[in-house]
C-alpha cells in the first residue's frame, strides 16, 4: 500500500515521463541528427509541408550531373516530379531507344548515349525568367540542349565544335538572345594530331555564341578564338551591362599536365569580358572567317513526333586581334570558378576558388578603364585591364573555396564555399558579411529562384552538396548527392530541409509555378499528327511487308492494340512497330514491349506516334503488351506476333477480335 505522498510522487514522475515522451515525439517531425538538431527550430517541418493535393510554389530544375538528365522537383517540399531525359538514353521513356528520338543523341562522333549535364538555365525576357524553355549543357561531348516547358521534353540539341568540354554554358542573355558555350579544355585549333606539349603554341580556347530564335531554335552565330586557357563558367550582363558576357578562366599558366599544381601558380587568372553587341557589328561588317567545322544539330518536331539530325559544316570565327574592343581580360585572383552578375548589372563577382577573399569588379569602372586604355598588357590581341582600375570591392575572408554566388531581391548576395562547407550572405555594395550557415557537406552550386536574373524571386535558397557521408541511411560505397533548402526571407538563413537528388546536382534553377502551369500541354492533338507512319484510327492500321522489312501501323486505346494478332513475320526480318496512341486524354500514356527484343519499351503519350524496332531471331509466337497501367483492363492489353522460319510462306495477316486482314 502506498502512502498518499507516494501517489503524488508517482503521478508527478508519470507526468515528467509523458512530457519528455511528447517533447521527443514533437521533435521527431524535424530532422534531428547530423548537425541538424541545433539549427532547426520546431516549426520547420511545416514550412516545407505541402498538404496532399496541394501544389508546391516553385518548380526546381536540377541538373542530373553524370546521369546526363534533368530532374524536376517542387519547392519547398523537395518532391521529385519527373526525370527529363536529355543527353543520356532512358529505358523508362524509350528515349534514345525508339526510332524517333535516336537522332537526338547523334553527334559528329556518331550516336553518343550519355553525357554529363551541368547547368540548367531558364529562358528570360527583360531579365526575368519566363518559363518558356530550359537550356542545359552537356560537358563531355560539347552540346547544349533545349527543353520545352510546355511538354517537359528535350526538343533540341546542338553540338559545339572546336570545344573540348562545354562547361561555361549555357547562361542566357537578358532576353534569351543568346546562350553561350566556353570550352573548359582548350584543344588544338583546328583539331589535329600534334604533340600535347605544344599546348601553348597549337591550342586555343573557343567561346561560342548560340543564337536563340523566337521559337527557341538554336544556331551557332559565331565563335571567338581566345588563348588556350580553361574557360570555366560564365554569366551575361544585365541592365547596364546588357550586351556583355563574362567568362572565368583558370590555367592561364597554359599547362597540360598535373594541373592540380601547375594551374594554381599565377597570382591572378582572368575573367574574359566579351562585348557581344560589338561581335554582332563585326559579323555584319564581315570581319569573320568562315571555317570548316562538323557538328550535329538535332531538332525534335512535335508534329511528326520525330527528331532529325543535320550535320552542320561551317562556323563563323572572330579573332580578337582583328576585332578591337571585342574582348578584355579582367585580372581576378586565384583560379576563379563562378562569375556572377548582380541584379543591377553593375557588379561582377569573381569567385576565386583558391583565393582568401571574394573579388568584385565594377562594370562602370571597367567601361572607364577601357575608355582610358588602362591596360596592363595584351595577350593574343586581348587587352588586360589593370586590376585596381576595375575592382569594386572585396569581401574580406568570407570563407574557404568560394565557388558560386546568387542574389535575392533585397540587395544581398549568397556565396557557396566548398572547402568550408557553408553559405555566406553578404551585402552587395558594402561587402559586409551578414550571416553564414553550414551545409552538409561540401556545397557546389547554390540556387535562389531567379537568383541569376535581373529580378530574383527570393524566399528560398538551395544548397547543392557534393558529399553527404552520414546524412542519410547509407547505401553502400555510393551515396546520394543532396540539396538543402534554406528560408532566406529573414535576416538569418534558416535550414528547412534535406533531400536527395539524382546524379550530381551541379546547378539548379527555380521558378514560381505560375509561370509554367498555365502553358502545360496535356496531350498531342491527333489532328496535328504528321508522323509518316501514323494511324489516326483503327481503320488505318495495317501490316506492310517491303522485302525483309515489315512495317506495323498500330494503334492503342483503352484497352487494346489494333492489330493485336500479327502473322507472316519471319526470322531475320526488320520489324518496325509504329504505334499511335489514340487517347486524347490527360495522363493516359500506353506502353509497348516485345519479349526478347534488344530494345527498351515505348512510352507513347496521347496523340503521339513512336516506333519500336525489332529483329526477331527465333521462330515462335511472341507476346507483346502495354507496360503502363492504363485502365481497368490494362492486364488484357496484350497481343501476339507469329514468327515463322526464314523463307517460309506464312502470309502477312493481322487482326483484332473477329476482323482479319491480309496484305
Amino acid at each position, binding site marked *: 500500500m502506498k502512502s498518499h505522498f507516494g*501517489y503524488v510522487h508517482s503521478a508527478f514522475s*508519470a*507526468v515528467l515521463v509523458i512530457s519528455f515522451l511528447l517533447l521527443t515525439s514533437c521533435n521527431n517531425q524535424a530532422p534531428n541528427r547530423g548537425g541538424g538538431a541545433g539549427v532547426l527550430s520546431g516549426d520547420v517541418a*511545416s*514550412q516545407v509541408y505541402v498538404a496532399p493535393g496541394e501544389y508546391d*510554389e516553385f518548380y526546381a530544375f536540377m541538373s542530373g550531373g553524370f546521369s546526363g538528365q534533368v530532374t524536376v522537383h517542387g519547392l519547398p517540399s523537395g518532391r521529385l516530379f519527373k526525370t527529363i531525359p536529355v543527353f543520356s538514353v532512358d529505358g523508362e521513356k524509350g528515349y534514345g531507344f525508339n526510332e524517333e528520338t535516336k537522332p537526338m543523341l547523334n553527334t559528329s562522333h556518331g550516336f553518343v548515349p550519355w553525357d554529363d549535364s551541368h547547368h540548367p538555365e531558364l529562358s528570360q525576357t527583360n531579365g526575368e525568367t519566363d518559363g518558356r524553355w530550359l537550356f542545359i549543357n552537356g560537358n563531355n561531348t560539347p552540346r547544349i540542349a533545349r527543353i520545352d516547358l510546355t511538354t517537359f521534353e528535350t526538343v533540341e540539341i546542338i553540338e559545339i565544335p572546336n570545344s573540348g568540354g562545354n562547361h561555361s554554358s549555357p547562361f542566357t542573355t537578358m532576353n534569351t538572345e543568346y546562350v553561350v558555350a566556353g570550352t573548359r579544355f582548350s584543344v588544338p585549333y583546328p583539331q589535329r594530331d600534334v604533340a600535347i606539349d605544344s599546348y601553348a603554341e597549337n591550342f586555343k580556347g573557343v567561346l561560342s555564341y548560340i543564337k536563340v530564335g523566337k521559337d527557341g531554335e538554336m544556331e551557332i552565330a559565331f565563335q571567338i578564338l581566345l588563348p588556350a586557357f580553361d574557360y570555366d563558367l560564365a554569366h551575361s550582363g544585365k541592365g547596364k551591362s546588357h550586351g556583355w558576357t563574362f567568362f572565368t578562366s583558370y590555367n592561364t599558366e597554359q599547362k597540360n599536365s598535373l594541373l592540380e599544381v601547375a594551374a594554381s601558380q599565377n597570382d591572378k587568372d582572368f575573367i574574359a569580358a566579351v562585348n557581344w553587341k560589338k561581335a554582332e557589328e563585326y559579323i555584319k561588317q564581315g570581319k569573320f572567317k568562315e571555317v570548316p567545322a562538323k557538328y550535329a544539330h538535332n531538332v525534335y518536331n512535335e508534329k511528326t513526333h520525330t527528331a532529325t539530325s543535320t550535320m552542320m559544316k561551317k562556323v563563323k570565327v572572330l579573332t580578337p586581334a582583328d576585332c578591337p574592343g571585342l574582348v578584355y581580360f579582367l585580372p581576378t585572383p586565384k583560379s576563379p570558378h563562378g562569375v556572377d552578375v548582380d541584379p543591377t548589372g553593375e557588379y561582377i563577382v569573381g569567385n576565386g576558388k583558391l583565393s582568401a577573399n571574394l573579388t568584385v569588379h565594377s562594370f562602370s569602372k571597367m567601361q572607364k578603364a577601357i575608355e582610358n586604355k588602362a591596360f596592363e598588357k595584351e595577350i593574343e590581341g586581348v587587352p588586360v585591364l589593370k586590376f585596381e582600375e576595375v575592382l569594386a570591392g572585396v569581401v574580406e575572408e568570407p570563407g574557404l573555396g568560394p565557388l558560386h554566388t546568387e542574389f535575392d531581391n533585397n540587395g544581398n548576395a549568397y556565396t557557396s564555399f566548398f572547402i568550408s562547407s557553408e553559405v555566406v550572405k553578404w551585402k552587395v555594395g558594402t561587402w559586409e558579411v551578414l550571416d553564414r550557415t553550414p551545409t552538409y557537406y561540401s556545397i557546389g552550386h547554390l540556387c535562389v529562384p531567379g537568383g541569376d536574373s535581373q529580378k530574383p524571386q527570393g524566399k528560398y535558397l538551395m544548397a547543392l552538396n557534393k558529399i553527404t557521408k552520414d546524412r542519410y541511411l547509407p547505401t553502400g560505397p555510393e551515396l546520394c548527392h543532396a540539396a538543402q533548402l534554406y528560408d532566406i526571407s529573414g535576416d538569418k538563413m534558416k535550414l528547412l530541409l534535406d533531400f536527395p537528388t539524382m546524379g550530381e546536382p551541379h546547378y539548379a534553377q527555380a521558378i514560381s509555378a505560375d509561370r509554367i502551369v498555365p502553358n502545360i500541354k496535356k496531350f498531342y492533338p491527333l489532328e496535328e499528327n504528321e508522323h509518316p507512319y501514323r494511324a489516326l484510327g483503327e481503320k488505318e492500321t495495317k501490316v506492310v511487308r517491303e522485302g525483309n522489312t515489315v512495317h506495323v501501323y498500330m494503334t492503342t486505346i483503352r484497352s487494346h492494340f489494333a492489330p493485336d494478332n500479327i502473322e507472316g513475320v519471319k526470322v531475320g526480318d526488320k520489324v518496325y512497330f509504329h504505334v499511335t496512341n489514340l487517347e486524347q486524354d*490527360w495522363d493516359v500514356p500506353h506502353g509497348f514491349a516485345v519479349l526478347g527484343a534488344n530494345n527498351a519499351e515505348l512510352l507513347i503519350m496521347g496523340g503521339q506516334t513512336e516506333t519500336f524496332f525489332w529483329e526477331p531471331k527465333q521462330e515462335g509466337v511472341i507476346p507483346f503488351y502495354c507496360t503502363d497501367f492504363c485502365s*481497368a483492363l490494362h492486364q488484357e492489353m496484350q497481343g501476339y506476333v507469329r514468327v515463322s522460319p526464314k523463307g517460309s510462306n506464312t502470309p502477312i495477316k493481322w487482326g483484332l477480335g473477329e476482323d482479319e486482314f491480309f496484305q
Partner: protein
Amino acid sequence: MKILHLITASLFAFAFFACQQSAPEANTAANGSAASDAGHKKGQADVQDPSSKKNILQIAIGSKDHTTLVAAVQAAELENVLVNAGPLTVFAPTNEAFAALPDGTVDNLLKPENKKLLARLIKFHAAPGKYTKALLKDGQRLFMASGHYVNVEKKGDDIYVDGGKIIGTVEASNGLVHVVDKVMLLPELKK
C-alpha cells in the same frame, strides 16, 4: 489515480495541440495562392481539364436529355467512377425513359435511404470494357458492373440491351455512352 488520469489527459491534449498548431500557419506561408481546398476535393471528378476529350460523366452532364440520370449519379455519389480510366460502356436512359417508370419510382430511388439500391441500379447500366455496337451480338449475355448479366438482342439494324433500344452512341475518353430508351430494371425492382 484519478488525478493522474486527469493530468495525463490534459497533457496529451495540450501536447497534441502544440504539435498540430504550427501546421495551418505554415501551409499558408509555404503554399501561397496554390489551391487550398484539398480537404474538400471529392476525387477525380473534380479534376479541371477542359482540353481533354470528354469522359462519360462530362458527356452525361452535357446532355439535356440526361438530367435525371446525372441527378441519380450524383445522389449515388458515383461521379468518380464515371470519370475513372475505364474503359466502361454506359447505357444511358433518357429523361423520357425515367419518366416512363411507375409514378414515384425515381423520387423513391433518390431518397437517401435508397442510396445503395440506386448505386446498384446505375452499375446495372454500366458494362466494364468498351462495347461498340459492332461488338454487341444477338443472344450475347453482357456482364454489368452490378454483377448481373443482361441479354443483347439484334432486330434488323437495331440493338436492344435488356429490352432497351440503343438510340444513339457517343464516344468518351474512358469508354462509350449508348443512349437507351428504357431504364433497365434490376431484378429486385421488377418484383
